[in-house]
């Protein structure tokens, strides 16, 4: 960012993949040539109109974009403050924003002549999206997933299995997303020739953070067009949950240079940011290096990574994309947090007022909306990224709420 116009937040990263001190390419030498090849191929692709056209075509006809911008009328009434819109990326094919990015990366993998796809997954949404698009193009697909996540996102495991993906359970660490990413990187090192690693969020070595952000920016670009169409002006605020940060970057990026648009990203506070059981890397982390990039990490004084915790598998990660680290330091985006309990409450609020079952990830964003919106005037336009549907979380929520499913009511 050093050489970007001083007043722009959208020009990064620099040619070495740095957002100021964040980002970069902290990978083993074995991977470096491939990483550089991905970077070159991605740059060539962005200059190729045919690539963009194929990407757009798949987003339209395969993914079902644009996703709706929906005025959450009853929620707005209920909260009594800002006018709340949902960006409905949960309506996308496969149920989350993750597929936007996967389509882009797999098209890139094809350009590069790669025949095998690997991916890590936490909530399983990225894994499902990857297995889906890989199947669509007849590519072999291996997904690394923490054993704990496999248990709590069982339906997504089934989906990947049926899509023909080879699922590799990861038992190291907490057996969640971080560990899956470690394992995917280890595997990639050994299969550099024919394999493309589809990273699921705006993290990893450069060019991934920028590339994933670019692919996800379709979200914010659509919002811009849709809100201008509906309200004749830009939103006053944007809210998104943040695991690695891809849905948030996708929503925020096209607005970062609009100074009137406030951006808030909501981290998972788990049992509370002061309990040690959370995943709030920007709130409670310090800069460090993990998974190929420098960013805020949950770590102890010795620089050992602290295992994160969140009820939401997709937010259960000790880091965050480097661009967020930079935006935080710049003060351009505000980083807040919501607990498991607040997310569960927001989940129910959403179900009962709008009939929408959000994934537990965006339920965190909604928890913050429920807190913030009532303090704002009625002419404040707020757009929240409802980036995933709750189907995958049914078991977790039913259990957490101590609910009895219908069939037990006989």
């Amino acid at each position, binding site marked *: 960012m050093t050489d970007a116009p001083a007043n722009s937040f959208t020009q990064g990263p620099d040619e070495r993949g740095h957002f100021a001190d964040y980002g*970069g390419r902290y990978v083993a030498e074995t991977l*470096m040539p491939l990483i550089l090849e991905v970077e070159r191929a991605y740059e060539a692709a962005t200059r190729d109109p045919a690539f963009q056209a194929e990407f757009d075509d798949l987003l339209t006809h395969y993914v079902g974009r644009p996703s709706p911008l929906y005025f959450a009328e009853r929620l707005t009434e209920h909260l009594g403050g800002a006018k709340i819109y949902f960006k409905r990326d949960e309506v996308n094919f496969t149920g989350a924003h993750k597929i936007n990015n996967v389509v882009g990366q797999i098209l890139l993998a094809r350009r590069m002549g790669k025949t095998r796809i690997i991916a890590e997954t936490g909530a399983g949404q990225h894994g499902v999206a990857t297995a889906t698009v890989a199947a669509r193009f007849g590519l072999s697909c291996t997904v690394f997933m923490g054993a704990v996540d496999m248990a709590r996102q069982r339906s997504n495991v089934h989906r990947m299995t049926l899509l023909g993906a080879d699922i590799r359970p990861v038992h190291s660490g907490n057996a969640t997303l971080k560990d899956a990413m470690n394992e995917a990187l280890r595997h990639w090192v050994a299969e550099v020739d024919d394999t493309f690693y589809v990273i699921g969020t705006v993290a990893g070595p450069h060019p991934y953070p920028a590339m994933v952000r670019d692919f996800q920016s379709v979200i914010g670009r659509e919002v811009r067009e849709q809100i201008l169409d509906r309200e004749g002006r830009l939103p006053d605020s944007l809210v998104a949950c943040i695991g690695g940060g891809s849905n948030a970057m996708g929503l925020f990026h096209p607005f970062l240079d609009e100074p009137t648009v406030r951006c808030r990203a909501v981290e998972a506070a788990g049992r509370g940011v002061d309990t040690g059981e959370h995943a709030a890397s920007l709130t409670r982390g310090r800069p460090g290096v993990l998974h190929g990039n420098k960013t805020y990490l949950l770590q102890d*004084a010795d620089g050992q990574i602290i295992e994160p915790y969140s009820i939401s598998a997709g937010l259960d990660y000790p880091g965050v994309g480097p661009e967020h680290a930079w935006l935080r330091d710049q003060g351009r985006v505000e980083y807040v947090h919501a607990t498991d309990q607040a997310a569960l409450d927001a989940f129910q609020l959403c179900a009962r007022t709008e009939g929408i079952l959000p994934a537990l990830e965006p339920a965190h964003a909604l928890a913050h909306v429920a807190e913030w919106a009532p303090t704002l005037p009625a002419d404040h336009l707020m757009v929240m990224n409802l980036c995933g549907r709750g189907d995958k979380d049914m078991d977790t929520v039913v259990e957490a709420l101590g609910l009895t499913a219908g069939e037990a009511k006989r």
Partner: protein
Amino acid sequence: MSARLTRRFEALARAGRAGLVTFVTAGDPDYETGLEIVRALPQAGADVIELGMPFTDPMADGPAIQEAGCRALDAGMTLARVLDLAAAFRAGDADTPVVLMGYINPILAMGLETFTARAAAAGVDGLIVVDMPPEEDAPLRRAASAQGLHLIRLATPTTDDDRLVRVLDGASGFLYYVSVAGVTGSKSAAGADIDAAVARLRRQTDLPIAVGFGIRTAEQAGAVARSADAAVVGSAIVNVVKAHLGRPDLVDAVSRFVADLSAGVRAARKEHS
């Protein structure tokens, strides 16, 4: 720059043989035993000691070294304790070069300057930081060289000639050739491939070349030692530690295994010539 490494490779060259670089994770299975193991290595035949700095997320390591790191961390190892261990070793051995190997995050947590200064004070000679490619290692390189520490670069089968120029630019101590694309403990490369790779590297550098990854037996070490300046053995040694956990003969077992490797390395060029 710390002269021990250079001296050692010069001595090996004079002796007409390759060296044996032994990797163990510092403090595996605990600080005391770890120190005993390291102290026994030169005697057993190790020419250079690579000390692993345990990290929770060793993304370039296979299961053996991952587990060794977990054992060390569980036993309370920290980066500071790794340096203590190096210093304790150095107190009893002025000559055997010690190279620390690990990941950048714990180093950043301590601070580049603090870390390099303390490492130098502990008698460490070089650093291998796996997740610091040339593109990112400038700050570490500056801090290391200010303290006379070699920052050792890695080359791999994926490093083509163009890239090798970059890797070698600023390389110091020796060049670590990772002979297979894979994590530590993967299967080993074919001898002929290694010979060819070493020959290629030699065309571009005068640095000593150590070859590692996947060397498990004295024979394999010997095969590498024919062309390379040193053979690096890691996971295989760590596996011996694991197999003898809780047993009184742990240190002996490691020593015996290292002695075996060393014999393989020492015999290599003789057999051939």
